[in-house]
């Protein structure tokens, strides 16, 4: 008997709660996930795919969905990882050893003697940083190039080369003083 009472009471309440939740989930439905935008805004937009995702936004979506770790973007380096950990409130993850140091910033240039004007690189460039038309010599707009190197593989004559971005006194950065007592952290 007492079991019956218990069951009835609890069932009534649960059904009521279920209805309530069902109702609210219909009435108070919220669309979209602003987190993705925020993550995307932190990524370097190099669109290089080194994160194993086809570009920055898909990677952002993967992070938001909890499928990807925050340390997979080599161009972003430690800074981006830290920014992501800050945004998402999760523990910083060390970068994989190979990418531990922030990679040197690079751009590419096209060896204009060799270029045959095949336009393959233009199609590959995610940010339209290559100028040129079919059968004509191509050249890179250096200020637009993100250094993603996506244009290199398609080039049939290997005329695209990587060069470091030049550091000027104006863009030069002071280094972090090396502490003599606390060795740098791993």
């Amino acid at each position, binding site marked *: 008997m007492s079991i019956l009472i218990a069951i009835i009471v609890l069932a009534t309440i649960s059904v009521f709660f279920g209805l309530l939740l069902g109702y609210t989930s219909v009435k108070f439905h919220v669309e979209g996930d602003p987190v993705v935008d925020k993550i995307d805004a932190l990524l370097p937009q190099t669109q290089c795919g080194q994160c194993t995702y086809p570009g920055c936004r898909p990677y952002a979506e993967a992070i938001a969905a909890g499928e990807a770790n925050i340390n997979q973007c080599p161009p972003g380096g430690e800074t981006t990882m830290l920014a992501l950990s800050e945004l998402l409130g999760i523990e910083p993850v060390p970068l994989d050893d190979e990418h531990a140091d922030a990679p040197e910033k690079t751009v590419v240039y096209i060896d204009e003697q060799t270029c045959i004007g095949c336009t393959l690189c233009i199609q590959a460039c995610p940010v339209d940083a290559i100028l040129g038309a079919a059968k004509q010599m191509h050249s890179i707009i250096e200020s637009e190039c993100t250094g993603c190197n996506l244009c290199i593989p398609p080039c049939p004559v290997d005329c695209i080369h990587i060069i470091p971005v030049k550091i000027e006194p104006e863009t030069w950065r002071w280094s972090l*003083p090396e502490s*003599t*007592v*606390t*060795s740098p952290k791993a």
Partner: protein
Amino acid sequence: MQFKTASSPHIPQQNNVQGLMFKVLLAMVPGTIAMIVFFGWGVLINIILASVVALSAEALMLWIRKRPIKPYITDGSAILTACLLVLALPQLAPWWLTMIGTLFAIIVAKHLYGGLGFNPFNPAMVGYVVVIISFPKEMTQWVPPLLEGYTHLTFTETLNIIFGGDLPLAYTWDAITMATPLDTVKTQLGLELSINEIENHKEYGGIFGSVGGFGWEWVNGLFLATGCYLAVKGIIDWRIPAGLIAALLVLSNTFALYDYASFAPPTFHLFSGGIMLAAFFIATDPVTAATTTKGRWLYGAGIGVFIFIIRTWGAYPDGIAFAVILMNMAAPLLDYYTMPRAFGHSWTEFPHHHKADDDEQ
């Protein structure tokens, strides 16, 4: 010609951590001598023991952590920690108790956080709290200060007690130890005696001097004097002791005025136990204190308030160590919320978050 490069400024400077620590150590000497005079050799023996343990532990930890050993061993902070811890312990604390306290202070409270400068909690006080919680019995073994009717121990006897744990044949614990004035007041108040009755009690009354506990007055007075010297020299920040003493004074005065029979007078509060040591040497530990001007006032005052609360209503006779650690906990937030107004900024923009600004845009 090739030149050395370095960051500005390029003027060699005299300040260094080592000097700072040794000046503080030096300032502790008079008070410590007074303690030895009033309370016997135990203080000295334990200081030596604790210093040796502290330095060894420090060296060991630095070695394990692969950090340079010499600059830290010689900086004096470990010795300072050891001395402050011992001054808070009962004089006849057995060797293992001193050792456990010191080891906890140096290893757990200091080096697990990265050593000098990184520890959020005052190591000496952590060490003290650990032992008072773990070994309350041993922590009540206070020697009566040069009083008649109590036996006084020679150096060798003290040594035997501390290291051997056994009393000389003729003595009992009850004969060589007694409750501290603070403890006595608390106990007797609990038995509904009035302050006046306690101070004039035929048995307990002797341990009260003219302003605080007998002997304790001198110890505290000397620490007050040398502490003031440090403050004048700018080695410690005067606001912390000032805040602490002011808060304690205000609270104890208020309550004593309200009911002078059941609350100890302010002078008693200030000159018993380790208040002056705490105010000028412990609370001022730069590493664990608040750093802003206002924060330091609040930090000192907070310690004072907690000391009063724990002394008056808590279970432990003196709350200094607890109060200090409690305020250590609050120090980061105090710093954050008492950030000074930067030059060219107005108060209203505090606390300034440029991130929030970004969001608005």
